């Protein structure tokens, strides 16, 4: 049994915020965190804007981890909840790809959106925030699966919704056709040949005695000296 974690103010009806109404399209009150990021991380800060009442802070991709760690640890910020990690690619293919983090501060009831822009032609890679939020695990894996963005430092970055042998690319990228890359019959053939149930990830192969049950191709890979495990 553990003591309940008290979130200040959450039980107090007087401090309950109200349903947002008449929000302007652009402009409005900036989340005070944005100014603090600007003053503390002048190098990392690119720009901040308010759209539909939500604050966007654009950061340089390489410094996301430092900023997020500050947001999580600082007593003034306490962004303890990671809602979502995702990415956006615009239809205009010249625009950079954006990685988006949605953070919540439960004690202060704040919401902040962090963005990092990855220009086309550069390696799609941002630091992983898994070391700060363990909930980032599957969110980052999905983002990698769907967009091909590599989260540096994620302990187990592999496909999650598509099967691991999936070769057609990254489905949510705009250059990926809605119907897939091949004909329906070819897609069906590949999906049936993939047999995801009979496959084990390299992590699972470290489990004892699984070897004999493995597909032949995987046993050969292991016999060829391929390393298992993380």
């Amino acid at each position, binding site marked *: 049994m553990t003591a309940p974690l008290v979130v200040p103010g959450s039980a107090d009806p007087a401090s309950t915020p109200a349903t947002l109404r008449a929000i302007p399209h*652009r402009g409005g009150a900036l989340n005070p965190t944005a100014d603090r990021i600007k003053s503390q991380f002048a190098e990392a800060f690119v720009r901040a804007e308010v759209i539909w009442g939500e604050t966007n802070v654009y950061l340089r991709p390489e410094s996301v981890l430092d900023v997020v760690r500050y947001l999580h640890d600082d007593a003034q910020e306490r962004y303890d909840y990671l809602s979502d990690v*995702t990415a956006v690619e615009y239809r205009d293919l010249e625009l950079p790809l954006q990685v988006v983090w949605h953070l919540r501060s439960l004690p202060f*009831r704040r919401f902040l959106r962090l963005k990092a822009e990855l220009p086309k032609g550069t390696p799609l890679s941002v630091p992983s925030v898994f070391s700060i939020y363990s909930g980032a695990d599957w969110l980052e894996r999905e983002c990698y699966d769907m967009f091909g963005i590599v989260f540096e430092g994620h302990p187990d970055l592999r496909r999650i*919704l598509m099967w691991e042998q999936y070769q057609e690319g990254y489905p949510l990228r705009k250059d990926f056709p809605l119907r897939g890359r091949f004909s329906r019959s070819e897609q069906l053939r590949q999906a049936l040949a993939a047999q995801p149930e009979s496959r084990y990830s390299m992590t*699972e192969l470290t489990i*004892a005695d699984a070897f004999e049950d493995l597909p032949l191709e995987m046993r050969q890979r292991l016999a060829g000296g391929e390393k298992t495990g993380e």
Partner: protein
Amino acid sequence: MVDEGGRVTTLEAPPAMEPELEGEHMLINLGPQHPATHGVLRLVLELDGETVVRCIPHVGYLHCGFEKIGEYRQYNQIIPWTDREDYLNSPGNNVAFALGAERLFGVEITPRCTVLRVIAMELSRIMSHLVWLGTTCIDIGAFTPFLWSFQERERIYTLLEQWIGARLTTTLTRVGGMGADIPDGWMDGLRDFVRTFPKTIAEVDRMVTRNGIWVGRTIGIGAMTGPDAVNAGLSGPLLRASGVAYDVRKDFPYLDYETYDFDVPVGTSGDVYDRFLVRMEELRQSVRILEQAAARLPDGPVNVDDARVILPPKSKATSEMESMIHHFKQVMEGPRPPIGECYVAVESPKGEKGYYFVSDGTPKPVRWRIRPPSYVNLSAIPRMVEGHLLSDVIAINASIDIVMGEIDR
């Protein structure tokens, strides 16, 4: 040893009852086609005897690319897809989607629509919790609560059918309003449900809550501490069972939830039993909200008076030039939101359900992202099951309340 005279001279150690076995671990595939995994979830479990040493979940068997398809649809055309992700909570998803799209369009809905949406959300919370209650009881070995809860759920489906014509995939909302106003006399049916439903909760409560088998199977199983649960991004009853009073309805209100009088139940130990208690109490609180909503439902239009997003009535569309143009533009091109983005989260029965829209000013979203609560909740299952027995995996998995349609999308 016995000497020649038959006397015992030395004592022999008794034979070991359990011979020392080699520490072989066993690999077990639970799923993907197992009734107790609540869908096509595959858990690869490493077992030491009957104890789970490691758990590796595999998802994606139901993946159909909702988010990709959404990029090729107009906003109102996406709403049927939201029925099909978390299909136990279709009206709630519809409302959440409409709220997000309305923020993106800058549309303010009418007071009657706001209250109707609250009714839809709470009915759908009760529906979803009842499925959870029934199936969890079956997983742990109790059959009767399943029948009782599905009977009550059937009554909600009948109400929804009277309202919108569909039962499971409701497509209840439109951007800027609802698909239909409630028919005459519908509120009587709702009041009847609200009056009699607490009796069923009380019956299940009397039967299950202090049942020895139930308590033995659930207390101390799959516990998560509050800080751990926040860090893992858990939400909904799962997070509140761990003692964190985070409820989107209270902390980031929408649909005037701050004006309703209801409590957020919070557990202490975060185990399967606390999750059960939290969900049972949420059923009662939803009834309270429904009572208040039924009492305050105002008259007036359901849809906003905004020709950008709401179709004109058929009679006007065929008789007035302007209405015909609006009708034509909306059907052929679709409403165009301004360039922008928004993230709108609601408290779904599973937790924080968010929709993130990015618009480039065209009638179709550049990005429509679902923040699925079950997905993030399920990602913590390895930490919950490790060290527990194989049979507890079923109880823990049931207590997370997953819907694979939402996880795989």
